[in-house]
């Protein structure tokens, strides 16, 4: 398996006490691909991300990153990958540039290349004008861009992004998507955990949907949608009594359906033409709910 994939995880199990946070996960990130790890809070995404930097040691299973076996050879793997954590751990009393300088040392960027690496990272994150600003003067979006720039200083071949846009405004989120998309086109392999469906749908070549520590579906977003939710959904609005009635009909006719608060979505229901409702394109969220029975968020 060495050489073909940036990340290979096989049968990964991690227990905390009697709880299995990850329960036999298989995961593959081919070189040059952007893979999404999708799931609600508590599905085991963060535990999986931490295992890839050997901050979580598996109870069972094998993990290989950039051809190095973890945890034994994790230090070499860490030297060649970049990590963008979910929790902002920038040094807030330092400037943007000082934060990058510190990590240029931690990631062993050679002395002669440090200056250039910092400039490149500043340009990439669009933070050239803010180089002298203290981190606690930056907006949430700028801080997240700085975190990403920090993870890219040493030009890693693989980038781990743990919930890269959590807690950000929609507009800022789209800025970050553009940045991530640019990295992807530059050939950086990316593993991104997220619980934003749209993010995974837009950016990822393939997604692994996790639920209760297991992968419940793997594949390109569009293929998963087609296979599980069909092309079109019928969204039926109405009184609670009407919605219950629609659900009963769907069950009787064998149409997959999901309740979304104020409506019932009939999925894979290209046949549900007689129902009165709004037609909409199916999405990855439909797949997720169908497969796990869980709502995201």
């Amino acid at each position, binding site marked *: 398996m060495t050489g073909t994939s940036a990340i290979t995880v096989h049968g990964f199990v991690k227990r905390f006490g009697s709880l299995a946070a990850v329960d036999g996960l298989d995961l593959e990130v081919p070189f040059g691909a952007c893979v999404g790890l999708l799931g609600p809070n508590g599905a085991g995404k963060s535990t999986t991300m931490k295992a890839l930097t*050997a901050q979580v040691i598996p109870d069972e299973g094998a993990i290989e990153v950039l051809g190095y076996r973890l945890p034994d050879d994790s*230090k*070499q793997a860490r030297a060649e990958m970049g990590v963008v954590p979910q929790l902002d*751990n920038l*040094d807030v*009393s330092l400037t943007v540039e000082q934060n990058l*300088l510190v*990590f240029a*040392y931690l990631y062993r960027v050679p002395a002669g290349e440090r200056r250039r690496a910092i400039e490149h990272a500043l340009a990439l994150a669009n933070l050239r004008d803010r180089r002298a600003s203290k981190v606690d003067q930056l907006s949430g979006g700028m801080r997240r861009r700085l975190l990403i720039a920090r993870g890219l200083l040493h030009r890693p*071949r693989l980038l781990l992004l743990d919930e890269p846009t959590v807690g950000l405004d929609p507009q800022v989120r789209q800025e970050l998507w553009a940045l991530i998309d640019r990295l992807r086109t530059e050939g950086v392999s990316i593993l991104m955990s997220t619980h934003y469906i749209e993010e995974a749908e837009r950016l990822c070549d393939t997604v692994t949907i996790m639920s209760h520590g297991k992968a419940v579906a793997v594949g390109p977003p569009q293929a998963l949608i087609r296979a599980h939710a069909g092309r079109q959904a019928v969204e039926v609005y109405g009184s609670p009594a009407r919605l219950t009635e629609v659900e009963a009909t769907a069950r009787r006719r064998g149409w997959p359906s999901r309740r979304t608060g104020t409506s019932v979505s009939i999925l894979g229901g290209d046949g549900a033409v007689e129902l009165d409702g709004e037609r909409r394109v199916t999405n990855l969220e439909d797949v997720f709910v169908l497969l796990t029975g869980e709502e995201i968020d």
Partner: protein
Amino acid sequence: MATSRRRLGRLERAALQGVMVREVVNFSSFWRSSTFSSTVDPTIYLLAFGLGFGSLVTRVAGHTYIEFVGTGIVATTVLFSGAFTAMYSTFIKYKFQHTYDAIIAAPVDTEELVTGEALWVAVRTGVYGCVPMLVAVAFGLAPSWGMLLVPLIAALAGFGWAAFGIFVAARVSKIESFSYWQSGLLTPMFLVAGTFFPLTALPHWAQVVGNFNPLFHCVQLVRHAVFGTEGIADLGHLAFLIGFALAFWRLAIRHMERKLIL
């Protein structure tokens, strides 16, 4: 990059340097407050005891009181700027700022992280440790060549206390728990170190206990460096400080690993 398949080793210079550069760059943003608290506190003790108590006592163990306290006070500085600094800054960095998560996601192992942090505290302690002694010189402690050894002694003791502080920070789950360590262990050690009065003034059992206090051995080494060495006895004091530093260095690594690696 992919061509180098060399397995990275332990305690690499590049990793230690990275950890220490982070500290140095951060230090540049708060060195004033840090230097103030690390040197002013012991200096106040020095002056309060030296001038206040010194007016009642003429000679202690063959020295004027300002000579006695002016040398012993180095250990107090070591404790304040070594153990206390390490306890609080370690706890804040791993628990609140998640700094350590970022560092060990880089090619730095916990062993290198702890070692780099302790080394940097040791450097600071070596420098700060001399400040109250130099103040004492202004108040009548005679300068001597042996004083040049004091930064080294303070740095060695400082490494041990930094490791102790990291160990404590890795043991507690909330910052309030430091009170038990401070009041229950560090305050008695601070007083029973021979800094302000000789251990021989205490009951026999307390003298025996005092021999297990690293601060006592630090005080003795500093006094002997300044006033004249005592051969084999000083080797004993030195060996104790080295043993203390080594033991808590390994303990700090082991316990911090348990916190950082799940």
